[in-house]
């Protein structure tokens, strides 16, 4: 089976730090960035190890603020 790689981009300043995306990520790579505070005053969601992303779009499906865009590439 070809390996599917995903790429997720966050519109950081729209994030309310609710953590729903963190809770539904099957690869557990999303976290709230405690070193950053966005325009709204929340710790925005971020991905540190993007190469582990499988592009399933679970995070985007559950994001209430449509912060997330998902791209997918098959190698």
């Amino acid at each position, binding site marked *: 089976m070809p390996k599917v790689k995903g790429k997720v981009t966050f519109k950081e300043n729209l994030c309310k730090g609710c953590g729903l995306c963190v809770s539904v990520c099957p690869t557990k790579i999303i976290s709230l960035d405690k070193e950053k505070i966005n325009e709204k005053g*929340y710790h925005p969601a971020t991905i540190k190890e993007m190469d582990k992303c499988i592009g399933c779009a679970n995070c985007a499906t559950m994001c209430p603020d449509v912060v997330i865009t998902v791209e997918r590439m098959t190698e």
Partner: protein
Amino acid sequence: MAVVFEKTKGLTDAQTHYCPGCTHGIVHRLVAESLEELGVLDEAIGVAPVGCSVLAYKYFNCDMHEAAHGRAPAVATGIKRVHPENFVFTYQGDGDLASIGTAEIVHAAHRGEKISTIFINNAIYGMTGGQMAPTTLIGQKATTAPYGRDKEHCGMPLKMAEMLATIDGAQFVERVAVNTPGNARKAKKAIKKCFQTQIEGKGFGIVEVLSTCPTNWGYTPVEALKWLEENMIPYYPLGNLRTPEEVE
């Protein structure tokens, strides 16, 4: 790289006023995506309710109208009868639809108005500060039920979807939830079928969406999803209660 998920044209760029983790945002997106995918975004006229989603007219990228508390189905009836070629939907919460607006929704369904209703059931009055709603569960605490809802005093929670499914004019009735990505995808399918019912002129359609209110329930957004699954779904079972044959 192929984009598999991006923001729909059905939503404006306005940032929502909803609390962090409120599932209203998810349902807004599902409705907007459905409008876009069914190609009715340009003809759509939405009616916003009173409640947390009172500002929904700022978020949907179509014509919108505000209604008095609970009267969205009555306003939608007027709009649809004057503009039968347009697609008309209402977006209402449980304080709006299941309490003050019960007469309007029952009779809109009874008359078989060709409109669609998205009903958000989060078992509480959100905007006014967490008072008990008709849909609040037995034992669930609210500011007006500090020891939890008591059956003897307040009766059982109202099951709107089951009630409306007994009405002949209500052609599409389904209850869905948005507590998991899987359920959210199913919810979108139900919303599209509901909209299809109107597009094909079959009659009234309603989708009840079990939703969370982390702020007034007193949980984190993630705990609230779990609470919904463990407490709301057993009392409000998910599933289709009525579908017109051709839409299936």
